[in-house]
């Protein structure tokens, strides 16, 4: 049966772990944003080895499970001298995995730019770097911000998988609390409700953002 007293007692500890969950989400998201952009640009490069590598990387990461990638980063790399904390391994794994999806998002944004914009940039003699910085990216990113927001929410909901590499985020905390007291109902219910509240409110924000961007 549900025990309010116990639920209130464990809440602070779960909320503390929520901080880890949220920071892991955001750091991984930043990794995904940066690496995703680099992958997109690399795939468009005229330098064949680079574009082939980027294409291969995307295919490889997408066709293997995130859990396997995380285990590899956390348990296999130390054998080759690269030991990472659970947090660092977790955000790298999650970030790299989602970078391949964000690369697709960037690509969509970039391909929606009419050829005339590239031609105007060239006619004004913009360098390649300035063409991207001043003309192409400022136009291709705003329309895809809502899609990026949805990936942020998806990544947030994926973070419990990081408990598999011993990161003490809220899922792991709930498990530990449960095994301590043999009460699982309260801990997992709180975890579920927290995910629900945060994901749902974020998705409402994304939707409002979408409307605002469309109005512009």
């Amino acid at each position, binding site marked *: 049966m549900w025990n309010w007293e116990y639920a209130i007692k464990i809440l602070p500890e779960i909320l503390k772990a929520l901080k880890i969950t949220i920071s892991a989400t955001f750091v991984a998201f930043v990794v995904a944003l940066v690496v995703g952009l680099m992958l997109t640009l690399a795939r468009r490069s005229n330098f064949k080895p680079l574009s082939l590598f980027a294409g291969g990387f995307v295919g490889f990461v997408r066709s293997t499970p995130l859990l396997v990638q995380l285990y590899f980063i956390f348990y296999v790399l130390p054998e080759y001298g690269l030991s990472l904390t659970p947090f660092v391994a977790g955000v790298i794994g999650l970030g790299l995995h989602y970078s391949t999806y964000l690369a697709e998002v960037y690509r969509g944004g970039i391909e929606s730019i009419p050829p*005339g914009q590239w031609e*105007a940039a*060239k006619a*004004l003699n*913009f*360098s*390649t770097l*300035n063409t991207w910085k001043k003309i192409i990216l400022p*136009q291709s990113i705003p329309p895809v911000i809502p899609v990026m927001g949805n990936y942020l929410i998806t990544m947030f909901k994926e973070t419990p998988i990081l408990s598999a590499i011993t990161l003490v985020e809220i899922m792991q905390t709930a498990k530990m609390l449960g095994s301590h007291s043999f009460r699982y109902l309260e801990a997992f219910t709180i975890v579920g409700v927290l995910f629900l509240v945060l994901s749902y409110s974020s998705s409402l924000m994304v939707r409002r953002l979408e409307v605002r961007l469309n109005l512009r």
Partner: protein
Amino acid sequence: MSVPLKLIYNEDPTKNIGSEVRKNIVRPIVTYNNISKSYGDLQVLKNIDLEIAPGEKVALIGPSGSGKTTLARLLMTLEEPTSGTIEVEGEMLWHQRVNDKLIKANEKHLHQVRGNIGMVFQHFNLFPHMTILRNVMEAPRNVLGLSKDEAKERAVKMLEQVGLSSKIDAYPAQLSGGQKQRVAIARALVMRPKVMLFDEPTSALDPELVGEVLEVIKAIASEGEMAMLLITHEMDFAKDVADRILFFDQGKIIEQGPPKKIFNNPESERLQTFLSRFNRH
């Protein structure tokens, strides 16, 4: 790549140039040498030779799909010629000479030569995420490396010249087509190119907006120093502005000469047909 290095001034260098300009000529600002362009099996330009004098206004007329636009796009480096060479002020555009051999130019070389050329597009191609002022000052700032104040001053002056100084804080979406095209002209002019390409600058405009754009172009043309290549279907405008008219058909220059001769005494049958079709519509 084997491009013959036979050059240009072996005969009369001014043979393709209108007589009024001929006497002032130093050397051509633009030279097309035996230029061809194909897309697969479709040859859109066939062995074009053309010289444009500094300050000369050349109008290209002819049916759609005759290769006029491609000729301009090759010079703007938006497309690469299949064979032949283009020179700007005596310097190869698409090629570099290394040990007496022609090799394909790298981006650095293209960047350097391209700075002499400006282009106005049929569909304006303004940057929709920037204000009018930023549309015009961004290239002086980032490409020419002017300070923010210098770039702004130049841009504002240019926008005054096209009659849009009241719109500097507006976004392109808030302007009419004619105003957009005037901004696009200011944006190209602010870079002070030696050659300006106008690719059907009024074809995408509502008829009542054509006049204001043509007026602006005429005013610029009357200032003189800049060479202009005008691709247009506005025959009266071509007659007014151009020193020389080229009639294109099926990838070739069929006939050329001063406007009076082209419009009053067309020699070739194709030009006669083309002009008569125009007069009827």
